[in-house]
C-alpha cells in the first residue's frame, strides 16, 4: 500500500507576538513546527503501513527551510520525503495550494506508484481553513472523507475502506473506495517516538526537492498569487474596546462580601439574569 501524507511547516503560533506599536507580526525567532494536526494524519498513515505493508511518502509545499519538517517526518518513520518549492508558489491561497499539491501528488504517483490513500490533517494552525484537503480530493477525483476519527478496516483486494467520520451530533460509519483522501481528526492517536533506526535513516536520506517544472506543472498561471482567486487586502490588529473592565475593589475585604458585591454588580448590568440563573439553577 502506498500512502501519501501532506504536511505543512507552520510557525509555533503559541509563540507568535504582535508588536505593540506597529501591530505587525514579530516573526523573528519564532520556531517552526510540523502543523500539529498533521501529526495525527502521519501517525495513522504509519500505522496502516505497519499493518498492511507498503510505504509512506510525506509531501510538503513551502520554502527551502520546510525540509526540516520533512526530515522530522522521516525521523518518525516515513519512507520518502518530497519538498515542492518554487518562487512561483509564493502567495498561494488554498485553491492555488491544492492545485500545486495535486499536481505533485500525481507526479509522485507516476514515479513511485499511485497512492491508495492521501492523508492531510484536519486543518492547519496558521490558516485554520480546512480547505486544502477537500481541494486536493476534488482535483484528483479522490473520494473525500473528512474529520475521520477511526479507520476500522482497509480491504486492499476489494479496494474498500471503512471509516468512522465525525459529524454534527455524532459519528457516521461509512464504507467507501480506494483511492481516497482522508483528513484526520485530532486526538485520534499519538505520534510515535521514532526509533534510532528511523533517526539514522532520516539523517542519511535525501529529501527530494521538486520545482514546479519537476512536478509537471506547466500552467504557472494557476500557481501562487496569479492562481489565487482570493486577495488579502488589509491586515490589521483587532481594536480594543475603549472601555476597560470596571474593577471591584478587593483590599481588606472578606470573600463573602466581595462575592455579594460582584453578584450585585452582575445583576445591575443584566437585571434579566436573576431569573435566568434561578431558572437554570432549578433545572
Amino acid at each position, binding site marked *: 500500500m502506498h500512502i501519501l501524507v501532506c504536511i505543512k511547516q507552520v510557525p509555533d503560533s503559541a509563540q507568535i507576538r504582535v508588536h505593540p506599536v506597529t501591530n505587525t507580526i514579530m516573526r523573528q525567532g519564532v520556531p517552526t513546527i510540523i502543523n500539529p494536526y498533521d501529526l495525527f494524519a502521519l501517525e495513522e498513515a504509519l500505522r496502516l503501513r505497519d499493518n498492511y505493508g507498503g510505504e509512506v511518502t510525506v509531501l510538503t509545499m513551502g520554502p527551502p527551510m520546510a525540509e526540516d519538517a520533512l526530515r522530522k517526518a522521516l525521523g518518525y518513520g516515513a519512507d520518502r520525503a518530497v519538498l515542492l518549492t518554487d518562487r512561483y508558489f509564493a502567495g498561494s491561497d488554498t485553491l492555488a495550494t491544492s492545485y500545486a499539491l495535486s499536481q505533485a501528488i500525481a507526479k509522485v504517483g507516476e514515479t513511485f506508484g499511485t497512492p491508495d490513500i492521501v492523508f492531510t490533517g484536519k486543518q492547519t494552525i496558521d*490558516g485554520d481553513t480546512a480547505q486544502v484537503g477537500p481541494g486536493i480530493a476534488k482535483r484528483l477525483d479522490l473520494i473525500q472523507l473528512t474529520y475521520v476519527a477511526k479507520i476500522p478496516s482497509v480491504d486492499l483486494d476489494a479496494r474498500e475502506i471503512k471509516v468512522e467520520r465525525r459529524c454534527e451530533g455524532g459519528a457516521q460509519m461509512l464504507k467507501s473506495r480506494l483511492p481516497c483522501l482522508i483528513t484526520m481528526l485530532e486526538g485520534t492517536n499519538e505520534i510515535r517516538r521514532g526509533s534510532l533506526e528511523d533517526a539514522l535513516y532520516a539523517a542519511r536520506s535525501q529529501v527530494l526537492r521538486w520545482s514546479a517544472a519537476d512536478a509537471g506543472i506547466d500552467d504557472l498561471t494557476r500557481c501562487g498569487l496569479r492562481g489565487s482567486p482570493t486577495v488579502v487586502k488589509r491586515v490589521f490588529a483587532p481594536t480594543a*474596546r475603549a472601555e476597560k473592565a470596571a474593577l471591584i475593589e478587593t483590599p481588606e475585604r472578606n470573600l463573602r462580601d466581595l*462575592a455579594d458585591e460582584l*453578584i450585585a454588580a452582575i445583576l445591575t448590568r443584566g437585571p434579566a439574569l436573576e431569573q435566568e440563573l434561578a431558572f437554570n439553577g432549578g433545572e
Partner: protein
Amino acid sequence: MSSANREAPRPASGRAGTKKELPDHFKDYRHVWVFIELERGQVHPVSFELLGEGRKLADKLGVELAGIVLGPPGETTQSAVAEAFAYGADLVYNVEAPLLADYRNEPFTKAMTDLVDAHKPEILLLGATTLGRDLAGSVATTLKTGLTADCTELDVDTDGSLAATRPTFGGSLLCTIYTLNYRPQMATVRPRVMPMPQRMDKPVGRVIRHKLSVAEDDIVTKILGFLPDSQSGKANLAYADVVVAGGLGLGAAENLQLMKDLARAIGAEHGCSRPLVQKGWLSADRQIGQTGKTIRPKLYIAAGISGAIQHRVGVEGADLIVAINTDPNAPIFDFAHLGIITDAIRFLPALTEAFTRRLSPHSRDKLAN
C-alpha cells in the same frame, strides 16, 4: 446602495488596485445565497445567523436573499424551507431526493454546484460546521472560485465586492479578503459568531425546485450507520446562555472542580481556555476560543484566564463578561465588563456560596435533592 452604483467600481488602493474588470461570464452573477444546513431533521442555528448577515448584504447590494435547502422529500425539508423564509429569505431553492437524507459529500456537492451553475449567485455563505466545511471546500474547488473560512465580519465594499474579514495568525491579527475576479464569492462563518436574527412569521415565498442529477448508484460512499453522541456529559457550549470557564490560573487539574461547582450552582455550561485542553485537564469539546467554540452567552465568567487574543475572539459576543484574575495587567481586563483582581482558587467557592444564597428557595430545594 443601489445596484446602479455597482457598475462603476472605484479604483481601490493597495493590491486590490490591481483589480481587473470582472470577466464577462461572471457579470450576470447576482443575489446572495445562504446554505441551510439540515441534518437529521434539524436546521443548524448557524443557518439562521447567516440569513441575518445575508439579509444585510443583500439589502446593501439591492438584490435578493435566497436560502438553499437540500433534503429528503417530506415534512422536515418543507419545514426547513418555511424557517428560511421566517429568518429573512426572499426565495428558496429546494432540492428534494431520498439520497439527501444524510449528508454525504458527493450528492451535496453535485446539488450545490448544479444550482450555482443554473442560477449564478454572487455570494454564497455556509456555516463553518463539519458539514459546511466539508461541502464548501469541494464546491469552491469544483467552481474554481475563492473561499474565505471562518469569517468574523462580512460587508460589501464600495464597488460591490464582498469584504470578508477573518482572524489570521492564530487570532493575533485580522485580515480582510476579497474574491475579485471569480464568482460566486464564498465564505463560511462559525456558529455563534453572528447574532441570531429575529424570527418573523410570514407566508412562505417563492420556492424554486430542482431535481438532483445523480442517483444512489452513482454515489461511491455508503452510510453504514450513525452513532449519536450520548447526551450526558456532552458540552453544548456554543448555545449556552450562561458559561463559566477556567484557565491556567486555577493552578491544578483538581481545582477545576471549583469552577464546575459554580457552573452547576447557576445552571451554566463549563469550559476552559486552550492550554487546559493541551494539558489534558478537559476534553477538546470544552475549549473556548478561536480554535475551539465561539460562545455568545448572556453571562460569561472567566476564572484564572489571562485572555489571549485567541480566547478573546471566541467570547467577545457575550453580553456580560466577568473576569477573575490575580494579574491586574492580564489582557482579559481589556475586554471584560466586570473584573475582580483576586485568586480564583480562593474566590470561586465564595462566589458559588453567594449565588446559592441568592437563588430562589424553589431552586435551592431542587439543588439540595
